[in-house]
């Protein structure tokens, strides 16, 4: 602990433990799987290590520790030969299961010729790796749901971006609960906001309108933006699917946004954004592509705004919250489940918690109802006792 004890003065101290040296258990997205299917091995720095990603002859994408167990050659500088990755140093051949299959100049592969491999999943055009410090395979119920639009012709292709951010990845996860920052950092105005944490899923539901003071009013003939509806869930520690609908006076635009990251090390991560947009009669082929590109650059602008904050801010384990803030502590309690052994996941980390802000009914209406309630009770009381209230 590097926590600073509060003295007997009244100054609030920022406390922060050292960033965890362990990396979260869960599925992490490494980006568009297409990118890894060019016949070459790829270097990926993740989970504090160097990994090699390669497509074997059977079409499967594999992830291994990049360093060859023979003499430490970098497999990601090697060559794909059939179903194996060949080390550039002495040509040892490694299979996607982590086993050495062949040493061209030797008759026998030594025992123990096995290296670290990661379970992979190639789904909806994206490559996922399962990280587990305990080395267990992913349980069947812990998965990334399919995204229908990702493989359908009436949706656009992914518009995908990747950015390296130099801070610990807890900062990006915190955004799930940070209602106020949407207003101040992203200029949107939530009228309804809800967080739900349950099991390995953390959800943010938001209905909002754009802030009138930060965007030009729609010109005549242009569709007018009325508001947006968003249901965004982290499935595990790092992959968020956001089903986002924009409501215009003349149409709805359906889209799926991905906000995902994987840690490079304790102090940096790769931040991904992805988007697909549904094509409709009012938003046909090229118009949908254009919309996806526009939304992508809009999201990137949002990321930039976040990054500016993250670059300069302090890590803080004891944020001082007002009643209008979201459930930061409960989110972090949920997030902690990915940083402990499965056997140490406590009920409080996975039990359902809801936080809701609904401003659709004005406070005055609530108060009126309370008064009516009280008046009615008083009337009932006086009726039953025969005494005036």
């Amino acid at each position, binding site marked *: 602990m590097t926590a600073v004890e509060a003295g007997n003065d009244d100054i609030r101290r920022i406390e922060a433990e050292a960033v965890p040296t362990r990396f979260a258990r869960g599925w992490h997205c490494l980006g568009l799987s297409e990118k890894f299917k060019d016949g070459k091995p790829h270097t990926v720095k993740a989970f504090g290590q160097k990994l090699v990603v390669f497509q074997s002859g059977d079409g499967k994408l594999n992830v291994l520790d990049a360093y060859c167990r023979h003499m430490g050659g970098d497999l990601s500088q090697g060559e794909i030969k059939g179903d194996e990755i060949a080390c550039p140093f002495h040509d040892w051949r490694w299979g996607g299961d982590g086993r050495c299959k062949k040493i061209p100049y030797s008759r026998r592969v030594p025992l123990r010729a096995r290296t670290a491999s990661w379970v992979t999943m190639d789904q909806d055009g994206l490559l996922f790796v399962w990280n587990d410090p305990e080395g267990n395979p992913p349980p069947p119920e812990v998965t990334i749901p399919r995204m229908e639009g990702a493989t359908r012709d009436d949706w656009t292709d992914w518009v995908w971006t990747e950015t390296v951010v130099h801070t610990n990845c807890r900062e990006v996860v915190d955004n799930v609960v940070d209602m106020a920052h949407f207003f101040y950092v992203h200029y949107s105005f939530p009228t309804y906001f809800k967080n739900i944490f*349950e099991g390995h899923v953390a959800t943010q539901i938001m209905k909002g309108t754009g802030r009138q003071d930060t965007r030009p009013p729609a010109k005549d003939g242009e569709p007018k933006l009325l508001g947006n509806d968003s249901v965004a869930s982290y499935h595990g520690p790092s992959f968020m699917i956001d089903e986002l609908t924009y409501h215009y006076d003349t149409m709805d635009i359906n889209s799926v946004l991905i906000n995902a990251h994987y840690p490079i090390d304790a102090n940096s991560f790769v931040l991904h954004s992805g988007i697909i947009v549904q094509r409709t009669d009012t938003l046909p082929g090229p118009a949908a592509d254009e919309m996806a590109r526009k939304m992508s650059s809009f999201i990137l602008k949002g990321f930039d705004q976040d990054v500016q904050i993250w670059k300069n801010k302090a890590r803080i384990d*004891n944020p001082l919250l007002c009643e209008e803030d979201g459930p930061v*502590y409960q989110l972090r309690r949920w997030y*902690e489940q990915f940083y402990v052994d499965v056997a140490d996941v406590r*009920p409080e980390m996975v039990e359902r918690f809801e936080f809701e802000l609904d401003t659709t009914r004005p406070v005055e209406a609530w108060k009126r109802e309370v008064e009516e309630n009280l008046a009615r009770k008083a009337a009932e009381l006086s009726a039953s006792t025969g005494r005036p209230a």
Partner: protein
Amino acid sequence: MTIRPDDRLLDAPMQPLTCRRCGAGVQVRKASWHQTSVQWNADATGTCQERRTAGAGVFAGCAALRDSIVQAALDGEIAVPEES
């Protein structure tokens, strides 16, 4: 990382509440008329009728529980801080 408590609960803790429909017992807190927090446990999620019959995907919440909370707040059983 240590799990830290939410200091806001010191001033106004979560209060127990039973759903009038199914009897699920949860903990509730309102920071204002607009804001509601609900802490469930495994018993409650197992008891809640709407939760049990909900399909796949995110279960946004139980309408009966929501009504129970609204009623409890209107009846003064769940505290709602005065807004200035």
